[in-house]
C-alpha cells in the first residue's frame, strides 16, 4: 500500500479554487436590453469580461441605403429609442449640411427645445434604471413619473410618445401647437422641483455613496484613449461637448454650463447627469423666451437629392456624441453610404476596463453608469 501511495502523483490540494464563468444576459434584468456579458469570476470579483453585442441588430444602416432621404428619419427613431428626437435632429442636420439648406431660426429654436426635452427624458430613464440596479427602487418610479410628462409634451407636439419622427430635412413638419410653450414652461418648473427629490434619496445617501464613489474610476487619458463621449468622458474631467465645441441647432445663442467631473467615478457621472437636467431646463427657458416668429420649414427642393459628396456631422445626444457620416453619389434618391457613430457603442468600449477587478454587484452599477441603449449599439 505504501509503495502504491508513493508512486501516485501528488494529490491535488483539498481546497481547489477555480474561476467561475458566468453568463450575464442577454436575458438579465440589469443589462439594459440585450447586452450579454461573459464574466470570469474569482469569487465575486470579475477577472475578465467579454462584452457580446449584436442581439438587436436590424441593419438600420444598410436599410437606410435603400430608402429615400425622408424615409430614413423614421429609421433613425429606432436606433436610440429612448432619445428619438435627437436622432432625428442629428440626421436631418447632416443632410441639411450636405445640401446646404438654411433652416429657419424658429425651427432651430424648437429643435433645441425638443432635443433638450429629449435629453431630460433620456436622463430620467437612465437615473431610474441606474438607481434600480443599485437597489433604490423608488427612484425608478419617481424618474418615470417625470419622464411621462416629457412624453406627454411630445405627444402634444407630434402625436407619438416614443418614436417621434418629429423633424424633417430643412425644418420641422409642424409648428408648435398653441399653448405648448406654456406647457413646456410648466414642466420645467415641475422638473426643477423634482430634482431635489431625487437628490434627497441618493446624493447624500451613505449607501449610495459607498456603492458609487470610487467605483469604475476612469482617468481622463484612458477616457480619451477609449473614445468615450458624453457624460462618461466629462465625468473624467475632459471638456468636450458638441453643443459648445461645434454648435448646432441654436445652441450658440444660449448660455449654459458644461458640468465636469474630477474623479471620473460612477458618482461623478451621476452628478454630471443630474446637473445636465438643470442645464437643460436653463436652455429650454432661454429658447422659449426668445422664440422667434417665422416659418418652421426652410426652402427645400421637392425631390431631395443632394449633390455628390460626403459629410460628417455630430450632435450631443443624451448619451454622447452622435455622428452621422453620409455619402451621396448625386444621382440616386437614397444615400450611397450611411454610417452612424453611436455614442452608446463607443461608450460600451469602456465597459470591460471598467468592470474588471470589480464585484458582480458593481457590474450592474457600471452598465448603468455608461448609459447604453442596445438599439443604438447594434442598430
Amino acid at each position, binding site marked *: 500500500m505504501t509503495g502504491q501511495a508513493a508512486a501516485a502523483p501528488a494529490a491535488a490540494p483539498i481546497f481547489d479554487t477555480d474561476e467561475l464563468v458566468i453568463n450575464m444576459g442577454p436575458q438579465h*434584468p*440589469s443589462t439594459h436590453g440585450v447586452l450579454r456579458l461573459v464574466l470570469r469570476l474569482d*469569487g*465575486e470579483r470579475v477577472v475578465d469580461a467579454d462584452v457580446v453585442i449584436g442581439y438587436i441588430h436590424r441593419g438600420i444602416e444598410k436599410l437606410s441605403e435603400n430608402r429615400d432621404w425622408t424615409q430614413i428619419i423614421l429609421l433613425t427613431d429606432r436606433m436610440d429609442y429612448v432619445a428619438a428626437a435627437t436622432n432625428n435632429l442629428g440626421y436631418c442636420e447632416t443632410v441639411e449640411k450636405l445640401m446646404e439648406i438654411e433652416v429657419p431660426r424658429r425651427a432651430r429654436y424648437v429643435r433645441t427645445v425638443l432635443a433638450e426635452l429629449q435629453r431630460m427624458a433620456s436622463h430620467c430613464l437612465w437615473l431610474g434604471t441606474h438607481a434600480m440596479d443599485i*437597489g433604490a427602487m*423608488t427612484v425608478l418610479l419617481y424618474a418615470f413619473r417625470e419622464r411621462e410628462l416629457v412624453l406627454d409634451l411630445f405627444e402634444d407636439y407630434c402625436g407619438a410618445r416614443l418614436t417621434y419622427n418629429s423633424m424633417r430635412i430643412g425644418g420641422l413638419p409642424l409648428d408648435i401647437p398653441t399653448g405648448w410653450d406654456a406647457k413646456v414652461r410648466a414642466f420645467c418648473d415641475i422638473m426643477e422641483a423634482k430634482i431635489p427629490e431625487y437628490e434627497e434619496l441618493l446624493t447624500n445617501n451613505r449607501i*449610495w455613496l459607498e456603492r458609487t464613489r470610487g467605483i469604475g474610476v476612469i482617468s481622463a487619458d484612458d477616457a480619451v484613449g477609449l473614445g468615450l463621449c458624453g457624460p462618461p468622458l466629462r465625468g473624467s474631467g475632459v471638456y468636450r461637448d458638441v453643443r459648445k465645441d461645434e454648435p448646432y441647432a441654436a445652441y450658440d445663442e444660449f448660455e449654459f454650463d458644461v458640468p465636469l467631473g474630477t474623479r471620473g467615478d460612477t458618482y461623478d457621472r451621476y452628478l454630471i447627469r443630474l446637473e445636465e437636467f438643470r442645464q437643460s431646463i436653463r436652455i429650454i427657458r432661454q429658447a422659449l423666451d426668445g422664440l422667434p416668429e417665422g416659418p418652421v420649414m426652410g426652402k427645400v427642393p421637392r425631390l431631395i437629392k443632394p449633390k455628390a459628396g460626403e459629410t460628417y456631422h455630430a450632435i450631443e445626444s443624451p448619451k454622447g456624441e452622435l455622428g452621422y457620416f453620409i455619402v451621396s453619389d448625386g444621382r440616386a434618391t437614397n444615400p450611397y453610404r450611411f454610417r452612424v457613430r453611436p455614442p452608446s457603442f463607443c461608450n460600451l468600449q469602456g465597459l470591460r476596463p471598467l468592470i474588471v477587478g470589480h464585484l458582480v454587484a458593481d457590474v*450592474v452599477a457600471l452598465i448603468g453608469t455608461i448609459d447604453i441603449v442596445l438599439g443604438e449599439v447594434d442598430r
Partner: protein
Amino acid sequence: MLDTIVIPLLKIAVLLNAVLVSVTFMVLLERKVIAWAQSRLGPMRVGPYGVLQAIADPIKLMIKEDIRPVRADPMLFTLAPILSLVPALVVFAVVPFGGDELFYVTDINVGLLFIISVTSIGVYGIILAGWASNSKYPLLASLRASAQLISYEIAVTMTLVSVILTAGTLSMVGIVEAQQQSGLWFAFVQPVAFVLVFIGGLAETNRAPFDLPEAEQELTGGFHTEYSGMRFALFFLAEYANIIVISAVVAILFWGGWLRPFPNVEALAFLDLIPGWIWFFGKMFVFLYIFIWIRATLPRYRYDQLMRLGWKVLIPIAIGNIVVTGVVKVLL
C-alpha cells in the same frame, strides 16, 4: 389531558394559521405601502382596493406547475424551502403575544436563546437552495448568504447579551416583566442595542438594504432563481414570517411587548383599558412598516460592505455595549 395536550395543540393550530394568513396580508401590505411611497396605487384589481390579492397570490402559486431542474439535487432541492420555513414558524412557540398564559404557546426559561438558535437555522435553507439548484447565480447567492450570516449573527447575538444582562433572564415573558418592574422600556435603557438588533434583523431576514442573497438586479432572484410554484412560495412565506418574528422580538425586547407606555405611571392607567395584545400588535405593526419603508428608500449594500459593517462597526459596538452594560450593572 386538557391542559397538557388539547389546549397547547389548539393554540399551535390557531397560531400557525394566524401566522400564515398574516404573511399573505403582509405581502399585500408591502406592495401597497411601497406603491404609495412610489406614487402609484399598487394592486387594485382583485377585490376592493386589491385586498383579495392576498388570497389570489397563494392560490396562483399553489396551482402552478412544480418545476425541478434536471440537474438539481432532488432531496436538497425539496428540503431547502422546508428548512427555511419551519424554523421561521417554530420560533413563534416562544413569542408571547400578551402577558396572560393564553397568549403564548410556551414560556421556556431560555426563550431568547431558543429564538437566536432557531432563526439561524433558517439561513441553511437559503444556502442549501443555492447549492442544490446546481446553477451559477443561486450558487453565488448562497455564498453571499453564508458570508452575510457570520457577519451579522455574531453582532446580533452579542448585542442580545447586553439585553439579557439588563433583564437578568432569558425568558421572553420574563424580559417584558423586567421592563414592567423597571418602569422603562429597554429601548430607553439600551438604545444602542435596539438599533443594532434592528439592523441585524434586516440582515437576518435578507431585507433591503441587505437583500444580497436575492438581489434580483444582480443575481436575477439569487437563491430562488430556479424555484417556482409552491416551493418558491415556501421561501416567500419564510421571509415574511421572519420579518414578523423580528418585529415581534424587537417589540418584546425593547418596546415592552404588551405593556402600555410608561407602565408604572399611574396617571396613564386609563391606557390599560386597551388590552395588552393590541399594544403588542400595534408595536409590531410599526416595525413591519419600518421594514417596508426602508426597502422603499435605500439602495442595496455590496456584500463586502455588509461584511465590513458587520465586523468593523457592529461587533465592536456590541462588545462595547456589553462592557458598558456590565459596568453599570455592577455599579448600581
